[in-house]
Every structure is written in structure tokens, then in C-alpha cells.
């Protein structure tokens, strides 16, 4: 059986619920659960606990009076004394700061300052910023993230300027922003690209800018959150690493499988989506790795190396 929260944590949640309970309102349990980060069943149990709470002398008029029926709660009498939300504790400010970091909102960003202004006086946001970081540094993607999140929320088409890493080309596309996905700290936009009429995945850090078009789109009934196709759908390149080479990790080479040979060298079998992508990864190893096949990858590696040599020229 899953262990429940300790008393102090549960009390935090109970106290966080109180300002949401307004007299004469009927509130869906799911909304309250989402508001304090628990399940509707947990929130129902919390509300039952709250009906036992109040202030001296604990007459019926001094108690929190709630009626839980089905999947909603009706507030007959709210909590005395705690009608407004409490200011953020240091743990909550840390969590919020880390989340905003992850979306690229730097410590000095207006949004971050606005939200953390409600932290308790005892919270040093400056100290938090200097000790906990959870994302991209300055020059990030915050404005882009906000634009795309709002467009996804309002189902508004967006014109993006996108840099395609595999070709080096920058193009403008009208997209239907469906979802924002974070994989290992990198944000991706999953969207329908109108130009090709298909779903595409765009790395946010390669979107130069995004502008709402004012035109609505109809969202799909379901969105797959995968940012790369499953390896079973991709061709596989065979790459040999020299015996003393440092092998790539599975974060930068997703889906790679290694086999060590008797001479100490390693064969990496790497599923790839585009030839230019895998060619760049092999070339970047500067001689530690050799693409054994397929031929299209070998050719692309040689062509890329020769092209780059000419630019050094």
C-alpha cells in the first residue's frame, strides 16, 4: 500500500485548501484536487477532515461546514481566519523558481519576479537563484515558450521561423501548436505543419521567433508526446569506435546499442531519423568513430568532413 504524506505535509495541503472553499459555492472535487496537487479521492478525505475543524468553542457555527456529494463539495460555512492564500514557503518558492527555470524564465524575468513577490519575507529569492538552477541560462526561450503556450491554449495558429539543424536552412512555417514536451531538459513543440500537412516536432531552441496569426485551428483528439519515432521504425547505422574512444551516452545517442569486440573496439548500432543527423554525430567524433554502413551514411560523413575542411581552408 502506498504510504500517505506525513502529518505536516498533509496539514500544508489542508491549509492550502482553505482559501479555495468559498461560502455557498459548489466546487468540483477534481478542481480542488488539481489546485493542491492530489487526487480527488485524497481531496475528499481532506475535506472530511476539515469538517472536524474549527475554532473554540466548536459550536456548529464555529466549524467548517461542508457537504460532499458525489464529485463535488458545497461550502456552507468557510474557515474562520484563513480566507486568503498563504505566502510561499521557501520550499514552494524553490519549486516555483526551478519550474520557471526549466521553461527558460531567468531570475530577473518579469514573470518570475511577479510570482516570487508573494514569497514569505523570510525567503531570500536571491539566495535561491544562486543555489538552485533547473534549466536554460540567459538568452533562453522564455518569450517563445509563453507565446507558444498561449497559442496552444487558445488553439491559435502560429507563424514560426525555424532553423533545421540537419540542413542548416531557416524557413517560415505556419503550425498548429498542439503540445509542449520536455525531454531531458530540452523543450520541443509538437505541431501540425500546414506546409507539409503532417505532424512535426520542433526544438524550441531552434525556433527563432513565433507570432500568433489570429487564425484558429481545431485541435486533434489525441496527441502523441513522442519527440522521435520508435527505433523499430528507423534505419540503423553501424558505427565502429576505436578501442580508446569515449563512447557516447544514450542521452545524446538515443536508442544506441553497443557491442564490444575482441580487439577492444566497440560497434554501436544507432537508429537514425536523417542521414545528415547521424553523419554530423559521427563526424564530430573527429576520427574516433567510423560509419561502417549503410553506404548513404558513410558517404554523408565523408562529404560533411570534406565540406568542413574546406571552410577551415
Amino acid at each position, binding site marked *: 500500500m502506498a504510504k500517505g504524506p506525513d502529518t*505536516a505535509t498533509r496539514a500544508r495541503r489542508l491549509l*492550502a485548501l482553505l482559501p479555495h472553499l468559498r461560502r455557498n459555492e459548489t466546487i468540483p472535487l477534481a478542481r480542488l484536487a488539481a489546485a493542491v496537487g*492530489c487526487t480527488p479521492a485524497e481531496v475528499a478525505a481532506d475535506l472530511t477532515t476539515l469538517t*472536524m475543524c474549527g475554532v473554540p468553542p466548536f459550536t456548529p457555527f464555529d466549524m467548517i461546514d461542508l457537504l460532499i456529494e458525489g464529485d463535488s463539495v458545497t461550502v456552507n460555512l468557510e474557515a474562520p481566519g484563513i480566507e486568503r*492564500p498563504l505566502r510561499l514557503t521557501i520550499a514552494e518558492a524553490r*519549486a516555483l523558481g526551478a519550474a520557471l527555470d526549466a521553461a527558460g524564465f531567468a531570475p530577473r524575468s518579469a514573470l518570475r519576479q511577479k510570482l516570487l*513577490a508573494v514569497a514569505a519575507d523570510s525567503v531570500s529569492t536571491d539566495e535561491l537563484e544562486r543555489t538552485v538552477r533547473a534549466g536554460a541560462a540567459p538568452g*533562453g526561450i522564455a518569450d517563445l515558450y509563453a507565446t507558444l503556450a498561449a497559442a496552444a491554449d487558445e488553439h491559435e495558429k502560429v507563424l514560426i521561423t525555424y532553423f533545421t539543424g540537419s540542413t542548416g536552412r531557416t524557413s517560415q512555417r505556419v503550425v498548429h501548436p498542439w503540445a509542449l514536451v*520536455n525531454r531531458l531538459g530540452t523543450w520541443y513543440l509538437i505541431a501540425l505543419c500546414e506546409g507539409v500537412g503532417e505532424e512535426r516536432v520542433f526544438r524550441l531552441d531552434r525556433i527563432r521567433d513565433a507570432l500568433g496569426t489570429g487564425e484558429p485551428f481545431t485541435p486533434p483528439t489525441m496527441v502523441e508526446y513522442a519527440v522521435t519515432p520508435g527505433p523499430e521504425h528507423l534505419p540503423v547505422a553501424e558505427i565502429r569506435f576505436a578501442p580508446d574512444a569515449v563512447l557516447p551516452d544514450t542521452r545524446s545517442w538515443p536508442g544506441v546499442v553497443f557491442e564490444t569486440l575482441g580487439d577492444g573496439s566497440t560497434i554501436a548500432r544507432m537508429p537514425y531519423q536523417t542521414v545528415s543527423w547521424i553523419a554530423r554525430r559521427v563526424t564530430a567524433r573527429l576520427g574516433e568513430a567510423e560509419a561502417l554502413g549503410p553506404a548513404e551514411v558513410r558517404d554523408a560523413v565523408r562529404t560533411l*568532413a570534406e565540406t568542413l575542411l574546406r571552410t577551415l581552408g
Partner: protein
Amino acid sequence: MSDAAERLVNLALYLASSRVPVTANECRSAGLGYPDEQDDATFLRMFERDKDALRAAGLVITVDRDDEAESYRIDAAATFARPVELAPDELAAVRAVAAALSADPGFPFTDDLALALGKLGTAGVAGPLATADLPDDTGDAQSHHARTIAEAVQTRKTLTFGYTNTAGEQKQHTVDPYGVFFREGNWYLIGCDRDLDAVRTYAIGRVAALGVNAGRPRTPDFERPADFDVTRHERLPFEYGLEQVAAQVRFEPDVAWRAERLARGRGTLRELADGSALWDVEAGDLERLATWIIDEGPAIHAVGPPELVYILETGLRAVADAHG
């Protein structure tokens, strides 16, 4: 007998609704849920724990002292939040990142984030579709350790842990934790290793048997250097190395806008007359910088030092020869 959470809520409501400060004994006899049969010392210990729990929830409890007893009240101005007004795109951004991270066990602060958003009134309403998968397959353990370490950073308590380095060597460490940061699927700890008397960076995914000094929990074990800033340790892969070398990297005009994002605040950037961006950055490992330039390309070029250009030239020639 009421349960402990009920008693804590009752105490919070009592303190918040009292017009005058109340003493511990008034709380005890007010029917908040303190057991009648409790002796004085046990009650006082429980009352102290309860006040700590309420403070941890965000209540600011002030103490008035006179000759006879201490009395307590809630500082309403310091306790209760003002409403926050967000623009639609700000609200959408907060909801998106919250939706993504609050469901990701790899984010160390999910519970605190949910409570923060609940207090801000930004939770509980459907927002844009978003999801996250921050760390790799060590996610849950990494996240749990990162949460514990972040707490120790704040309370300044010393850590002990076993650590397996990249060479596979295992060693026990005693570290004063200064900060934590996340990059590309991994959480990292920066702290002063007491045995080495030096600041080191540890991948939290490689930490095992993590312990926090439980002695004197209200007293910090160490002082963090006043000028400590975790961002100075949040380096790019090629910045690690014993000897730092000044390097220059040029971004062609078409991709000059990428320079600020890729530089991540490291080094200095300037725009050249032709619209290129020139990046001056310190490198501790020129081979890794050469790899980085190709990985992040196209249209990014090494300018100097000559050793960097040489590494690229010989490396690329080897690649071309091997695939010829």
C-alpha cells in the same frame, strides 16, 4: 481524540482568528485536540512541533514575551499573499510548465510546486497540453536525492554519500553542499569536499547511500562562500579542464541569433560588421570544443586558438580518409 492534522488546522485557525495573542496554555485548553492526559513537558514539545509545522506551511507566527508567559499570534501581513495578476501568455506559460513538471517524477519538487501553484491560484484550470521527462532512467532516485540535497543546501547541513566516478571508482565523500543544478537529464551537486578541502561537482545520479547530518538540525554546519553562484559552475561540456584557454567561435550571419542561446551566458558575444556573431569563451578542453562546434553546426566555425583549428583539421582529415 482528533488526528494530528486536524489539531494543526485547529491551531492555525485559532491563531488566525484570535483578536489577541494567545498563550500555549490557552491553546492547550481550547479544545484544539491536545490530549488531556498529557504532562506539561510532552505538551510543550508537541506544541513546538506544531508551530514548526505551521511555519513550514507558511504561517508567520510571532511571539510576544512578558514576565509571565509567551503568547503567539499570526502576523497577517507577513502570512497572507496578495493576488497575482498575470497576462494571458504568462498564465499559459505557468500552466504549461506546471502541467509538464508536476506529473514528472524526475522533477524533484512536484509536491511543493503543486502547493505553490495552489496558493497562486494558477492551478486547477486546464491549460495547454504539456509533458516532461527530465532525467533519464535514473530519474526517480536522482529526483529523490536532488530534493534531499536541495533541502540540505538551504539548511546548510553536511552530506555523506558514496560516489562512483566516470572511471567506475567508488569512494565515500563528506560534502558541504553549496548548490544544485540541472543539465541535459542530470542533476548536479556543487559542494566543498571536506577531505579534499576543494569545491567539486558531483553527478547526483552517481550518488548512493546519501545521508544528511542529523545533529543539531536547527544549526547550519557550514558557511557558504558569500559570492557563491551556481551559474558559474553550470558549465558547457568543453569548459571542464585543468588549463583554461581563450577560444573564439564565429556564427555566420544567418545563425548569429543562435549564438546567445547556445552560449548560455558563458563568455562574451559581439556582433561583427557582416552580421556574424563572435564568441569569446574559455575552454578547458579544446577537443570537446571542436566536437561541440560540429555538433551544433552547421554555420559555426572555429576562429582560434590555432590549436583548436589544428584539432579540427587533423580530425576532419582522419574522418574523410576513414570514409574515403
